[in-house]
């Protein structure tokens, strides 16, 4: 496809002119980079002569290019009419019947390709599941001699997702029928159902966990009914015990891929599959109806909370508990930086919790489910706290929070958590009744105005402004509108007995009310600010006035009614529920923005085995008199010297590859030895003039290598192709390292953004205008750095640190272009400012399609801000995962598939394809669920009380409803504004605190600070999830440990009888008493301080005794950790 094709492809789509310009400039730029890179590659000085990533525009393109089969055009046509799911089936059928295949293809080949392409279409050609998740598709024989189809699943199937992975078997069954094969007959050789049951349980216990828990009977039911065989390759070194050496199952180890298809796919998603089966009109799958499916571990709230608490990870704080007063109160809505699995929290929380959270920190939440990332929104409700002197204060804003921070004793109410309706929709969740929030009140007022006083100026002003208390009371009385939420307390969370106590103050008037200390808890529950003086609670100002008007003007009559109803009756002012539910929040992974490095970090992919010492230093290795390396046999026949580049770096002529039969040792020109009838490898262990090559390279690049100049121990690719040394020299010079595929990359947590202010991203108005940004969201010309602008589809705002790293990458690419490839430089970028406007690709770890993005600015956070559509094109939502960012030119010049292992999973996380455009209607459905509404209508709030499913709500506009219209590109509105994106610190404490102990310390401090979190419960959980497993694990590992050589690093499973390493040096233990006892003192102190129960206490003491019985009584009181208090 050429450049013009790119434009013609988008010219049919309805979009504003500026978007057409935008996409045109993106494809122009992409192609110009392509051409520049291609001309550099054509110099043949590199180890590969072509640009390897291929450009693919859409699903059809990707599938065709990934499988190297010419189906793009027909597939595009089929997709237009049938949609993704049916197209997969149609095309699979055509392939199975021999269309698009070579004439000599066997039936097995055809079916193999059919299943793979089918899955590729289902997974949109983005994941590598079709290539590497399916290990093989084979025709096998049943015991009765009939033929059936067997699909063998490998680990990377995981990248396809649960439903899709199971659909693989539906497609396989479909083509099986077309090919006229029989059904698979389970258990005809041995107990295959039993094998799956045993294997799955072993996998769950030893290897990894699944998304769902399933029943044994379901496993038996599925395996005995499957019409095709679910086979698999082994993935983990755990063996079954009772079902070994089976006729059809070649391995005794667990087959993670197949088990995942069974557990998370066939059984966990059986309901979704049934819908597909109906759509596909497949018969023979009715038995899926009988499955019990995923077993929820506890349906009621309490169980879910208990489960979440059990998952507590040491050092990762629990911030809020589900459905408890004082936790984060659910608030519906979206800000420009939330939605798409990012949730809003007030920035003052981060400040008063010592930055336990930062932008991009992953959190686990119970409603609407799964993970989310933190974003800061300052227009939502703030926390209420108790100070050391007993007074209760509602924090006004960040500044106020910082002022009182050191006086805070307890956080009584955490304030709001802003969750978008789209996230409820995406998770197919039920709505929870909304609290009576400001925007709810405004909608009620709006309705009244429209009905009775459409032109009332006084009333209309309150649609945009909070009324004073007097005004609020008057409006409520006059118009029968509930009391404004600003003056509301959690009346719904106290009992009528509590109210009775509140009706008996020590002193009362309109400006001051005094209570005895006994009602403190009630006032705290209400969230009513007060002072404490001499054991007396004093309400003043606004609080006194609210209490006076609600409680003391007319004496309430206590009845069976709820407190808000009692007060509404007596005062004539409607009191609504301020509380809705609280969301359980615990911290998951910390946010991340860092260069991606290999372990250990590597400058160049060149193998030096052990000769460079533990740092893999090429300079050290080059001092070896006879340096040998296991690399490809590329030889310059003129100089008779090995070569890395296709052209000889000395004389410049083209080199050739020599094959050597490992049996007869003959030198061949073909990769096959006719004499021995076996494959001949292209690589060998050979002498390599490393020293002279390094000198040559340094001379050529004008860069001197510094120690350590890091290579790799060995190459992981089949032909042992190495990188030219020059690349490493330049990387080292600019402080860069390489990833296993030859690219220089950074990882950053994904975060959505739909609007920005120039002041947030540090880019000048002029520069923004150059980039095509001319107007703000209201259509006003761009003049000030505080105007709000809607971000373009593929524009990204990257962390500052990553920007700096990319500037160096630009310099590196330029030096390579000039001095290595002999071409002109391309970027000429000297600083961050000049990098703005350049193209990068975003790449998610389990995929192989890089999505083009354009840098428009930088942020002092650790996240990469991009549109939900852009993130979703990478097949990601923002639930806390980090994706790679690679400079576009770098991925074209330096990436080579040849460097990657041909083993299963080797192709994951590599830019095999590059997609230049992101079009909303082509992105993942989850991006289409983003709400783009400006207001939440009254109808919506009312539907929350019905607790309907989010999918049954039609009152909120989402992207899906705009697809195929111009407005799918712009006017993405939000409901809640924010003044800033971040807080005073860009990194969370978890990533800045050093030791696990410091992190744990913070976790306990947070638990003691936050009222809704119970420290004893938390400590008990930390003991059982971290401390005990650590102590026990290390103690057991101690008596099974391996040993390591102090000099060469060789490791020994057991102490050898010669008692030294083969190299003659001393061996040391890998686990010592110190490492076993690391947490013992802490654990003992915790079980004394907190009430964690007899069982927990007993475990710690038993472990302590056991340590003494392994090592003997400890010599004195060894202080192994700084004292914890």
């Amino acid at each position, binding site marked *: 496809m050429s450049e013009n094709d790119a434009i013609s492809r988008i010219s049919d789509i309805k979009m504003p002119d500026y978007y057409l310009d935008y996409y045109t400039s993106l494809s122009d730029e992409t192609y110009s980079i392509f051409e520049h890179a291609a001309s550099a590659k054509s110099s043949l000085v590199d180890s590969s002569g072509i640009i390897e990533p291929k450009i693919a525009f859409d699903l059809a393109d990707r599938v065709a290019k990934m499988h190297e089969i010419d189906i793009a055009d027909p597939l595009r046509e089929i997709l237009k009419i049938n949609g993704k799911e049916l197209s997969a089936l149609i095309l699979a059928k055509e392939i199975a019947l021999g269309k698009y295949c070579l004439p000599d293809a066997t039936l097995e080949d055809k079916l193999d390709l059919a299943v793979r392409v089918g899955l590729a279409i289902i997974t949109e050609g983005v994941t590598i599941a079709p290539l590497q998740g399916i290990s093989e598709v084979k025709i096998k024989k049943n015991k009765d001699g009939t033929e059936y189809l067997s699909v063998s699943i490998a680990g990377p199937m995981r990248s396809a997702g649960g439903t899709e992975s199971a659909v693989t078997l539906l497609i396989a069954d479909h083509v099986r029928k077309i090919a006229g094969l029989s059904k698979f007959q389970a258990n005809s050789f041995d107990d295959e159902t039993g094998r799956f049951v045993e294997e799955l349980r072993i996998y769950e216990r030893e290897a990894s966990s699944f998304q769902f828990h399933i029943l044994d009977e379901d496993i038996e039911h599925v395996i005995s009914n499957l019409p095709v065989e679910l086979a698999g390759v082994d993935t983990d070194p755990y063996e079954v*015990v009772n079902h070994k*050496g089976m006729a059809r199952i070649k391995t005794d180890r667990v087959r993670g891929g197949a088990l995942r298809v069974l557990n998370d796919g066939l059984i966990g998603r059986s309901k979704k599959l049934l819908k597909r089966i109906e759509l596909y009109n497949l018969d023979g799958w009715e038995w899926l109806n009988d499955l019990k499916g995923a077993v929820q571990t506890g349906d009621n709230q309490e169980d879910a909370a208990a489960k979440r608490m059990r998952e507590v990870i040491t050092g990762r704080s629990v911030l809020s508990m589900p459905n408890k007063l004082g936790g984060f109160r659910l608030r519906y809505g979206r800000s420009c930086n939330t939605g798409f699995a990012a949730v809003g929290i007030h920035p003052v929380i981060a400040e008063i919790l010592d930055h336990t959270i930062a932008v991009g920190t992953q959190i686990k939440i119970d409603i609407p489910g799964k993970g989310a990332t933190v974003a800061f929104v300052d227009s939502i409700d703030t926390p209420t706290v108790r100070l050391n002197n007993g007074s209760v204060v509602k924090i006004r804003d960040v500044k106020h929070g910082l002022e009182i921070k050191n006086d805070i004793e307890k956080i009584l109410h955490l304030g709001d958590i802003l969750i978008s309706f789209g996230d409820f929709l995406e998770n197919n969740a039920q709505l929870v009744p909304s609290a009576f929030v400001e925007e709810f009140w405004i909608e009620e007022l709006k309705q009244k105005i429209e009905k009775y006083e459409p032109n009332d100026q006084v009333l209309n002003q309150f649609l945009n402004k909070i009324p004073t208390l007097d005004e609020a009371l008057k409006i409520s009385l006059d118009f029968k509108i509930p009391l404004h939420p600003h003056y509301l307390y959690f009346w719904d969370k106290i009992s009528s007995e509590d109210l009775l106590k509140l009706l008996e103050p020590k002193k009362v008037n309109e400006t001051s009310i005094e209570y005895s200390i006994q009602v403190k808890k009630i006032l705290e529950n209400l969230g009513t600010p007060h002072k404490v003086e001499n054991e007396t609670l004093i309400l003043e100002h606004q609080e006194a006035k609210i209490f006076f008007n609600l409680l003391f003007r007319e004496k309430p009559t206590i009845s069976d009614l709820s407190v808000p109803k009692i007060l509404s009756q007596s005062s004539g002012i409607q009191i609504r529920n301020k509380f809705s539910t609280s969301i359980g929040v615990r911290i998951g992974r910390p946010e991340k923005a860092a260069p991606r490095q290999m372990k250990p970090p590597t400058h160049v992919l060149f193998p030096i085995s052990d000769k460079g010492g533990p740092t893999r230093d090429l300079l050290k290795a080059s001092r070896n008199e006879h340096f040998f390396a296991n690399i490809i046999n590329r030889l310059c026949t003129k100089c008779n010297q090995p070569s890395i580049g296709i052209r000889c770096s000395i004389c410049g002529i083209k080199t050739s590859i020599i094959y050597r039969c490992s049996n007869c040792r003959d030198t061949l020109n073909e990769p096959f030895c006719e004499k021995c009838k076996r494959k001949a490898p292209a690589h060998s262990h050979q002498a390599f003039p490393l020293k002279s090559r390094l000198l040559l390279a340094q001379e050529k690049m004008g860069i001197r290598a510094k120690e350590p100049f890091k290579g790799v121990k060995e190459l992981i690719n089949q032909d042992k192709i190495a990188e030219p040394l020059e690349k490493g020299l330049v990387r080292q010079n600019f402080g860069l390292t390489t990833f296993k595929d030859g690219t220089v990359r950074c990882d950053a947590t994904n975060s959505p953004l739909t609007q920005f202010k120039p002041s947030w991203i540090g880019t000048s108005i002029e520069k923004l205008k150059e980039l095509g940004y001319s107007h703000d969201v209201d259509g006003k010309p761009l003049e000030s750095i505080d105007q709000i602008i809607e971000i373009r589809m593929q524009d990204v705002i990257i962390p500052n640190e990553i920007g700096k790293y990319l500037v160096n990458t630009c310099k590196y690419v330029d030096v390579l272009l000039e001095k290595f490839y002999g071409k002109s430089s391309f970027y000429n970028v000297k600083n961050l400012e000049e990098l703005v406007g350049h193209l990068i690709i975003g790449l998610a770890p389990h995929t192989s399609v890089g999505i083009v993005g354009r840098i428009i600015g930088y942020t002092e956070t650790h996240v990469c801000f991009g549109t939900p559509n852009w993130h979703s094109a990478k097949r990601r939502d923002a639930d806390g995962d980090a994706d790679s960012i690679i400079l576009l030119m770098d991925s074209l010049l330096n990436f080579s598939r040849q460097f990657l292992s041909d083993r299963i999973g080797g192709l994951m996380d590599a830019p095999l394809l590059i997609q230049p455009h992101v079009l909303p209607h082509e992105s993942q459905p989850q991006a289409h669920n983003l709400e783009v509404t400006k207001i939440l209508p009254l109808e919506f709030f009312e539907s929350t009380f019905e607790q309907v499913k989010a999918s049954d709500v039609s009152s909120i506009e989402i992207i899906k409803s705009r697809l195929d219209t111009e407005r799918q590109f712009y006017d993405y509105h939000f409901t809640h504004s924010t003044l800033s994106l971040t807080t005073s610190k860009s990194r969370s404490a978890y990533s800045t605190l050093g030791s696990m102990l410091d992190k744990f310390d913070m976790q306990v401090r947070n638990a003691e600070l936050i009222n809704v979190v119970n420290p004893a419960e938390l400590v008990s959980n930390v003991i059982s999830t971290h401390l005990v497993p650590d102590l026990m694990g290390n103690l*057991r590992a101690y008596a099974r440990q391996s040993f390591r050589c102090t000099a060469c690093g060789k490791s020994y499973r057991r102490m*050898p009888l010669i008692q030294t390493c083969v190299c003659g040096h001393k061996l040391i233990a890998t686990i*010592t008493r110190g490492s076993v006892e690391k947490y013992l003192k802490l654990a003992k102190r915790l079980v004394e301080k907190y009430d964690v129960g007899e069982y927990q206490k*007993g475990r710690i003491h038993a472990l302590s005794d056991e340590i003494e019985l392994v090592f003997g009584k400890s010599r004195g009181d060894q202080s192994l950790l700084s004292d914890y208090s």
Partner: protein
Amino acid sequence: MKKELSFALNYALNKGFQIHPDAFKILENVDVKKLEKIIKEIVREKTRQKLFQINQDDLETYLGIKEDLSLKNEVKILSDPTSKITSGEGVKGYNALFSSRFNKLKRIISDRPESKLLKSAASLKNAKIDDDQYVCGLVSIRNSERNITKIVLEDPSGSFEGIIFDEELQKTAGTLLIDQFVMARIGSAKNSGYIIKDIILPDIPEQAKNKSESDAYAVFLSDLHIGSKYFMEEEFSDFVSWISSPDPVAKKIRFVLIGGDIVDGVGIYPNQNKELVCQTIQEQLKKAEDLIDKIPKNVKIIIMPGNHDPGRRALPQPAIPKKYNSGLWERENVIMVGNPAVVSLNGVIVSMFHGQSIDDIVKTTPGLSYDRPTNVMKHLLRARHLSPIYGSQTPIAPEMEDLMVIQDIPDIFHVGHVHRAQLDMYKGILLINSGSWQKQTPFQASVGMTPNPGIAIIVNLKTFQVFHENYSSNLDNILQT
């Protein structure tokens, strides 16, 4: 009064007999099913003697329950690791441990004539040898590829690598356990390197059995898992009361051996607290003590720890520490030993081992399974080591001496751990896996393990005749022999 008892009484009275109150007391405790037969036979016998009073002596003689003072209950502890542990640490400890293993087993194998021809591994370095030679050492690598098995042996001088072509010998080699001691007959290969021509294991020599002079019986138990929800408390209590019943077999019991996992422990596996009825070790052991209390005082009880009991998990294990239950330690008829232990019961030598190593051996050895634990026990005897594999599941502590080497040849080899009661013989040694007293747990069910719990194995130490009492109501639950 029970129906059967009044029937018996009436029967005797009708025949004109008097029953002495002491005799009546004995009758009350007799199994009701046997009552009718007993009373009829005694009446017939006494009628013949024309003596019409049934007294205590008559019944005791008939039932064989007369306290037989000639039955000895002599226990000698021949080997117990309790006082010998925590002797080494880290590198030093493991060096000593494996040297000790090598030296002890080399001494055992030196009884064989071939051992005169032993060469050290270092002396063989690539040298061509004309005649067959012998090397010995610990197996450090066992590798089968295509049609060749490769084995690496290690001795204090270095390591030796040999290959095996012979199919039969490959089968033998395939069952070698990593880190076990073997001797190999070797010759030079065609090109270079060495061929292994024979593999010689330390093994057990045939020898005469020790026997108890008196007719005392020993009960072999293990894996009670007291404190677990799944402990068969009722069945076990029934069994304990049977020991003190007038049953002729029960009356001769003088020893009860408990081979580990007497309690379920605390924190042994994740979320164990949900499957416990007693949440602390102290509670669990107290319950054990209460149950044991019901065993007659003339029966000696030997208790060994397993992987669920408190103390330490690494082998060898010391006896369950006194601090958790001094009651058991102070009881006169209870002897607390470590794991493994060797005891002599009236001269009969019993080697007791809980059996943790079975897990690793079953996993890595073809042809072995949890269903037939005695086959694994044979492997251990042939290797003359209770837990050869290092570095896998079973932790092995760095002690200065390898206490897991089987030095003394036992008459009875008693192992538990896998919850499959089974009997077998190997070279004159009675092999007992004593099963369990815990019902199938959810964990066992999930991996398809079916235990046969509730079976007590009883051995006559004079004749080596084996009895068993089955307390399971499940008809499929039977003792394997």
